[in-house]
């Protein structure tokens, strides 16, 4: 039983990766044998070492288990609707949501989420990138830390507080000031996206509050990306006679494009997943919005609003979990895309 090759592997085993199944089983067997051996013979410091490793191993397994549990549970809960005749994967493209008549089309919510998200991204990304450029390129040092702190604080404010603010300030503003002003002005009244009556709750309010919530993410991540551009790039450009803004636009910005792309994608993920603020101001009506003042229903809102009633109806609950599954797939997509962009950027930009 005195097997002493537990810590240092035999040379051929270290070089050759265990590719074949037999090798894998063998190495697993060996590691289990070593484990038992160590548990029986370790004394003093070695025993502390062993117990410590065990004490760390259990939390690792539990937390990985929880992560896998949550991800597979969404899949498991949404299978009834995806396999039943009433539903099927086609519900993603159907627009009628009426659980009382067994119609579970979730396209309305996907469309609502996307409209809200793209409106928010359209507002937040240009502003955020502009602010990040100012922050990293032109800002005097004393101001820099102040603005950074403000941006960090904006990111820390809970979404319910933003929702409260939007509900109390933004919605009345859109209802009483913005909508009448835009609709009575002959220059803008003809535009189809300003049509329809407004009670303030709708796509515009949702998009604007989402944009405000995205801004700190966009600013912080783009600022990091811009700051990681080597100083020599800027110096080279300035030495060639370019002004600072030309340098910022055509040298620094293009070197930081991968990081900024990752920022945009990350904020896209956050926007799709935002719950409370959007729930409070989008009006939650089962229709696809044709104007900025029309109410929308986003994916997170439908789960929040109906899970309480749905939990006794298997299909209904399962349909809600299908919405959650779509959200999870989006999260996978965005995370993967952000990683790919960063990897691509590191390869093409030659940075680290």
């Amino acid at each position: 039983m005195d097997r002493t090759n537990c810590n240092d592997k035999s040379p051929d085993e270290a070089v050759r990766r265990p590719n074949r199944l037999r090798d894998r089983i063998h190495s697993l067997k060996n590691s289990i044998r070593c484990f038992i051996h160590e548990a029986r013979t370790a004394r003093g410091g070695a025993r502390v070492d062993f117990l410590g490793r065990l004490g760390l191993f259990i939390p690792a397994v539990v937390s990985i288990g929880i992560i896998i549990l949550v991800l597979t549970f969404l899949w498991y809960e949404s299978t009834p609707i995806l396999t039943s005749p009433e539903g099927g994967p086609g519900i993603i493209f159907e627009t009628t949501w009426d659980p009382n008549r067994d119609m579970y089309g979730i396209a309305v919510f996907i469309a609502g989420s996307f409209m809200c998200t793209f409106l928010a991204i359209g507002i937040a990304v240009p502003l955020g990138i502009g602010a990040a450029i100012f922050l990293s390129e032109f800002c005097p040092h004393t101001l820099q830390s102040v603005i950074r702190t403000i941006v960090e604080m904006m990111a820390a404010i809970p979404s319910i507080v933003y929702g409260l603010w939007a509900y109390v300030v933004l919605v009345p503003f859109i209802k009483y000031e913005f909508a009448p002003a835009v609709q009575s002005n002959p220059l803008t009244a003809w535009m189809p996206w300003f049509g329809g009556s407004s009670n303030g709750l709708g796509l515009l309010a949702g998009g604007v509050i989402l944009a405000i919530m995205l801004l700190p993410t966009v600013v912080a991540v783009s600022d990091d990306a811009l700051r990681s551009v080597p100083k020599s790039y800027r110096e080279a450009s300035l030495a060639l006679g370019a002004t600072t803004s030309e340098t910022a636009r055509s040298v620094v910005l293009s070197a930081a494009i991968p990081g900024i792309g990752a920022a945009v994608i990350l904020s896209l993920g956050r926007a799709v997943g935002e719950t409370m603020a959007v729930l409070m101001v989008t009006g939650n009506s089962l229709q696809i919005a044709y104007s900025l003042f029309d109410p929308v229903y986003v994916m997170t809102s439908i789960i929040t609003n109906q899970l309480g009633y749905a939990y006794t109806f298997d299909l209904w609950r399962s349909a809600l979990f299908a919405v959650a599954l779509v959200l999870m797939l989006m999260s996978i997509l965005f995370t993967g895309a952000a990683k790919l962009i960063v990897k691509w950027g590191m390869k093409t930009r030659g940075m680290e």
Partner: protein
Amino acid sequence: MDDVKSQLRLDENEAYEETEDTGYHPKAFNEFERWFKRQTTIHGRRDLKDLLFKMLLSVVVIIVCMPFFMVLIQVGTVGMGVLLGSGPGQGLDFFLSTPGPGLQGGVLNAIAGTAYLVGIAMLVGVPLSLFGAIYITEYTRPGFMRSSVEFAADVLAGIPSIVFGAFGFTFLVIYLRIGMGMLAGGLTLAFMMIPTVLRTTQEALRQVPMSLREASLALGATKWTTTWKITIRAAFPGIITGVLLAMGRVMGETAPLIFTSGNNLGLPTSVTGPGSWVASMPYTVWSYISDPRNYVNDKAQATALTLMGMVLLIDLIANFISRKVTRRLV
């Protein structure tokens, strides 16, 4: 044009003389003035474009920072009105009494509830994710398994909070029959915390230079001693920052709690069962703001102000630790 230039040069030369002139030109202001002059010196069309671009961007920065102050002013004015008032459930009473009939009292139930929930979440979530991250980073070899675990954690961190709520409700409350209450709510929050804390801890551990570990191992320390006494100690500020940020985030979450923690106008009386239903500050904000009564709406804003103050305080502490302590240790 030359005037401005000579003025600029003069300013730079004046830096020595300025030291005698105490107090009149504070240094920061003088620097700012010089910076401003350098920015606004125009030599031609390209400089004009340069200046216009910078002005555009500074306007953008003002727009970006404005919402913060707008939220602060709105919530602050109404909230302070309640916090400094002297009516029922106002002033100090706001923190020290439960709502009572007609929701006229304070929000002690929400503050205590948030404390319970965050406490349970920290108690469960932090050790699991912290030690898990240490094991994954220190004891396993990088490879497919490790990167897939990291990817799964990233995906889970990107999942909307309401999905965690739905999971907690269906899995914990219904399948495991824990029932709504602070246990289910706290566990749901813990599940939300795990991926974030796991990733930030890993990031902090990765920043510790390899040479520190090698030096310790070369002195004959065991892996455990090295990890515990050297690696964790060096990564400590980063780890604490990650934990505090996750705590601040979890504190403001409403959606996971709607279906898992219930609501309660008094204090919870037991750990399980119906007596364990708890209110929380975000949930209270949400339910109070949709109330038709005006004074209840004001209380919602005061609660939001309190919540915001707590979260921002935690954020500031985290910031302080990551800036000051990191510099001293490494």
